[in-house]
């Protein structure tokens, strides 16, 4: 019998399998969770304490950069290719144009402070480089890169005119404090775009320093840092904004982490093909700090009562709004762009960066925007938008003389000035991707459908509420896309 001693093991295994297999086959497990968004979030790298690695004295920013480059040899060249340094895109072909153009703060204008040409002293305060004074700036010198802007403790380091370190900054202490960029690093420029807290974006402001869940679920409830989503490799920072980048390359999407049908609800998931996640999940902008919705340059220069949120002599009149309801438009990720020198019709609103997409564009989805309207100067003879000298020597902010502001800036901006100016309406679209509300505060069906008024169906190209008229992919009323 010896040879059969362990045959019972096979019997046991067979018996157990006979029970286990049917159980596995027939007992229905709970449906798997829709998605594990955390799989899209890279682990935070361990910080390296630089205080022991750097010593001596630093006389200037570039000296710090040189020290950084001693170890981070590639970083300099990487940064020279980064739009955070170049402030200019790769050449792109925009619709209706024969030639490619480059787009960026460097060479284009917006409808806030208008353009950097001639105004480097103030504008380049937010440039990730040192000492950008004029059009002759050396974009090939890696030592011009400002590492500290993004990597130093913002409590130690700050930037001043022309992007140079602010007066009195202890560069050694700043250099020793470097680490992974925090919300404050990014926020030192991006929370204050347009010249002050909350001015520009409508979905980014100082409330992100210590955000609550109501401000942004990712950064508030889950304590995300900007770079958790704006993933960066070789100093190429993920993300794009149609104010400075016309194509959707390098875009960050919710579906980078979240499933594309994440709702556990077929009706909601069916919306994904037509409605951007942001439309429901960012129900309003400027949830804490009011943002600038309109800017009228034509009233600048007068001695009117001043208030940061209504009128400043140097800038004109403003409208600020808190908790604004976004403007919804079809958007396929790309935008048209007003290029310096394009002629405008001053009677009509010039769209600086019209989002592209329409109801018949399957890639386009209904997307929320902050629309910033402005009345800004243009050349009344050449019919193009002008970049005034505001912050530069003899600029409008000191002289309050428009003529001089335009004349003195012709060389800097490359725009000839005829001697006659006017003010024309413009609008810029700002995509909204932050201020994501917790899901329990996302928009509900009846915000848009039924008696809800959030979406203007006919303006979007629908015959009526698609709840009743059918979606754009259905043919209840013919091809809705036409």
């Amino acid at each position: 019998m010896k040879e059969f001693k362990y045959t019972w093991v096979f019997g046991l295994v067979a018996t157990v399998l006979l029970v286990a297999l049917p159980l596995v086959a027939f007992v229905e497990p709970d449906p798997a969770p829709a998605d594990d968004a955390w799989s899209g979030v890279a682990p935070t790298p361990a910080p390296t304490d630089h205080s022991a690695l750097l010593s001596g004295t630093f006389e200037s920013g570039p000296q710090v950069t040189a020290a950084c480059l001693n170890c981070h040899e590639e970083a300099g060249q990487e940064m020279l290719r980064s739009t955070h340094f170049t402030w200019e895109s790769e050449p792109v072909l925009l619709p209706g144009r024969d030639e490619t153009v480059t787009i960026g703060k460097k060479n284009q204008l917006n409808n806030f402070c208008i353009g950097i040409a001639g105004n480097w002293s103030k504008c380049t305060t937010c440039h990730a480089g040192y000492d950008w004074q004029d059009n002759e700036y050396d974009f090939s010198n890696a030592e011009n890169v400002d590492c500290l802007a993004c990597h130093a403790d913002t409590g130690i380091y700050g930037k001043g005119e022309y992007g140079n370190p602010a007066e009195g900054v202890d560069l050694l202490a700043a250099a020793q404090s470097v680490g992974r960029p925090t919300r404050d690093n990014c926020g030192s420029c991006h929370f204050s775009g347009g010249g002050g807290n909350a001015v520009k974006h409508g979905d980014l402001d100082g409330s992100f320093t210590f955000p609550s869940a109501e401000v942004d679920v990712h950064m508030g409830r889950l304590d995300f840092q900007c770079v958790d989503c704006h993933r960066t490799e070789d100093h190429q920072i993920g993300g794009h904004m149609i104010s400075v980048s016309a194509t959707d390359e390098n875009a960050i999407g919710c579906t980078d982490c979240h499933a594309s049908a994440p709702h556990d609800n077929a009706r909601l998931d069916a919306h994904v093909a037509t409605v951007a996640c942001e439309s429901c999940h960012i129900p309003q902008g400027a949830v804490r700090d009011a943002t600038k919705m309109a800017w009228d340059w034509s009233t600048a220069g007068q001695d009117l009562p001043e208030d940061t949120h209504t009128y400043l002599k140097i800038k004109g009149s403003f409208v600020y709004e808190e908790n604004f309801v976004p403007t919804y438009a079809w958007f396929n990720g790309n935008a048209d762009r007003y290029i310096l020198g394009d002629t405008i019709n001053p009677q009509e609103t010039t769209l600086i960066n019209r989002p592209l997409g329409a109801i018949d564009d399957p890639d386009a989805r209904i997307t929320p925007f902050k629309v910033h309207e402005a009345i800004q100067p243009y050349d009344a003879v050449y019919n193009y938008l002008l970049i005034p000298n505001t912050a530069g020597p003899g600029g409008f902010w000191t002289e309050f003389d428009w003529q001089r502001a335009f004349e003195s800036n012709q060389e800097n901006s490359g725009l000839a000035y005829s001697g006659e100016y006017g003010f024309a309406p413009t609008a810029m679209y700002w995509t909204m991707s932050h201020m994501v509300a917790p899901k329990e505060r996302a928009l509900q069906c009846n915000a848009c459908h039924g008696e809800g008024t959030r979406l203007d169906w006919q303006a979007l190209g629908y015959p009526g509420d698609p709840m009743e008229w059918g979606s754009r992919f259905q043919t209840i009323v013919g091809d809705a896309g036409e």
Partner: protein
Amino acid sequence: MKKIQQTRGPLFYLRPGVNTRATSGLTRGPLFYMSLAVVLLLAFAVLVDGGRVAAQEAEPDAEAAGAPMHPAIPLLDAEGEHVLSEGAAVSTMTTCGACHDTAFIAGHSFHADVGLSGLGTPGSPDAGLPWDTSPGLFGKWNPLTYRYLSPAGDSRVDLTTPEWVQLFGARHVGGGPAIYSRDVLPLTETTQAADSPETQRVNPETGAPEPWDWQASGTVEMNCFLCHTGQPNNEARTAALQSGAFSWAATATLSGSGLVEGAKGDWRWNADAFDAQGNVAPSTLDIQDPSSANCGACHGVVEMVNEGPVALGDLHAAEAWTTRTTGQVYSGERLLNSALNLEDKASLSRPWDVHAERALNCSDCHYSLNNPIYFEGADANRPDHLLFDPRRLDLGDYLYRPLHEFAKGQSAQGTLAPELDNSLRRCESCHDVAASHQWLPYKERHTAALSCESCHAPALYAPAQESIDWTVLTVDGTAAESWRGSGSDGLITGYEPALLARENGDGGMALAPYNLIASWYWIYGEPARPAPLRDLRAAWLDGDAYAPEVLAAFDGNGDGRLGDEELRIDTGAKEALIAGRLEALGLDNPRISGSVQPYSINHSVATGEWATKECTECHGSASRVTRPMRLAGYVPGGVLPTLLGDDSTQLHGELQLRQDGTLYYQPQTNVEEESGLSPLYILGHNSVDIVDWAGLFIFVATVAGASAHAGMRYFAARRHPPKEKAVRQVYLFGVYERLWHWLQTLVIFGLLFTGLIIHKPDQFGIFAFRYVVQVHNVLAAILVANAALSAFYHLASGEIQQFLPRPRGFFDHAFAEAKYYLQGIFRGEPLPFKKTRRQKLNPLQQATYFVLLNVLLPLQALTGIFMWGAQRWPSLTASLGGLPFLAPLHTMVAWLLASFIVMHVYLTTTGRTPTTYTRAMITGWDEVEVVAQSGEAKGVS
């Protein structure tokens, strides 16, 4: 004036052909044809041009749908003259009647009728209280509103018809009893009669009847504007009714829009609001489909746009009715955004009602029953070969004669128009339960026993009335009340509705959620009537303070006011005092009566995420299904209230008066057959105590017996150490037999364990009930398959005879065996029976297995299968006694099987060594003593 149309046949007079129209009493002016032409043109445009023309010209977006459809119209008075010519009150019947058949509309509307056509003598309605005279607002007494419409002939009159219009007109659209007498004659033509409650009113000061001049007050036409304009001025309408200016109610509804301004006796039309042709533009008078907000003017809190937090206001207000009675709110707003101080509010991200969130309007379900968009005739009215009848009512015909009978369910207290009960599409008409409840085991069984609302309206968050006590009066002359859903710290907790048996449209009985409102009140006389409020106030109050005598009796702490604890009739003396005071007012034999009325809950629906999903919520000792509901904090006068069910709603539970004086309703799941409710046996909740105790006793006794036997063997072995016996190995059990045995072992242990969890889930909280049920079912399937295969094997191989007791010598052998186990085993005697390959089982085993395999196992399998079959073949299971019979039997057999296993396992230790037999069942080789050898052992190989 036409007599009101009282006949309500089945709904299928709904094809107003040419003939029907020709007989209509009204001639249609050119406006009708113009608007019809517009409608048809638009419809044509939609068809031809893919909707683009319609989109541009008619702007049919959701909120505006219908509004621009309606043309500018002139407003006409009752004489058909323009209101500007005489400045008279607008008449809906002439104004709207220019294009729509308003006589037809008013004659086919239970909203107008509110019980007039069903009015009878007190007690004549099928359900309700003995003094009810109709199934509707006009004649059905409700303790919440308290006032009683006195029938003709009552010596003591509470409400007369004109007073009813003044008071209840707030929730009545007009028409019906506000136009016609109880004999269905125009009220303006009734003749004064001193004893008629129709032409009199009771002077509130003196209590004396006085004549009511219907000519002066006018009557209340069915008010189209109340439901068909965007911003009806309901406040002004109600004020006009209360003031007795009945004919101006519709005019008042239009006030505030710039069209007409003023107040009683002084209404001025604004000529500027009319165009040169005398028409009112849609921009001034937005005539439209009724919005949900229109319905909310009478039916409860409705808020379709999430603009600003939903606040409830005074729940006593007429328009809060359904919210007051049930806590239902129809709004898509998330609870966390509401104005209510809800407990744990931040976590309540569900909307008040998911259908409101999904932008369903009231009329999407409660549609007009001849609306060609929604209405579909009953299957029974269609020949079998037709799936769909495309011949629909023409839109123009519908707009001419839109039936104002609306699809309705069958709600408790909603007893009006019973012929329309269940004309509503039910949850399952739109929703596919199977497609969305994959997670739910026994879907069919659950949906047969439970209405959708039972799980999908798990809690109501607005406060609902719990009780109302009219036996006492507060100093401002109203009843003492209690409300549900408020926590001790003042935060609103919401409440869990009671589950009552409801008869559904398909005839099935299912549990559905209800609020129960208990009420107590004084009644008097024979036949009984509720004590009129005026008498009640006279008995309690002296002006605006309590009568001194009353205060002295009730004010326990002597602070001069009556607190909540004092304002209750809790002694015979107090009861006698009030009864005496009522009697002194002329009320005969005043006595306290009480009732409990259910109010059904079908709104405030939650999606699956918020529905009751946890199995143990019902399958546990504190089952949701039988959870008691508090009715009142005290019982006035010690009078237990009557449980008032109706045709569709049955209260099978019982009242439970607790030690602290609170009164509860305790639902019952097992009620008599004739109730129509099939008795429920909820696994994990129900059990039969005697079965469990008997089973446990047998099990424990078996364990005890085996232990005692083992102990005796142990001591016997110590005294007489067993002699080493010569044994030899015999191959007894083949591979298949062993596999079969151990598989059965594993499965039976699994079944007993999972069965125990299902039986008493509260004791095994760590196991998910749902999985345990599934595991139990799969194991049971394996058991049955294994048993069937082995039966085949034993039959095919002839091994079956091993299990068949042989008659010859059976009892001798059995006796010898029994004797061995009772005596011989302790003395180390040899086994009287020698196992061989041919005969493995001794007679005792044979007998045991015979019972086990032929009785217990099949019984257990069959009861299990039929319990499982409650969802596949419910009628078969029901015919076998249903779960209430099968489940306890299954439990009992499980106990017996468990006991058998104890004995079986113990006896395996009686071999040469305790593990000998177990090893034999593993290896197949048993040891057989060689003392008295028998020849069969050669059969090895």
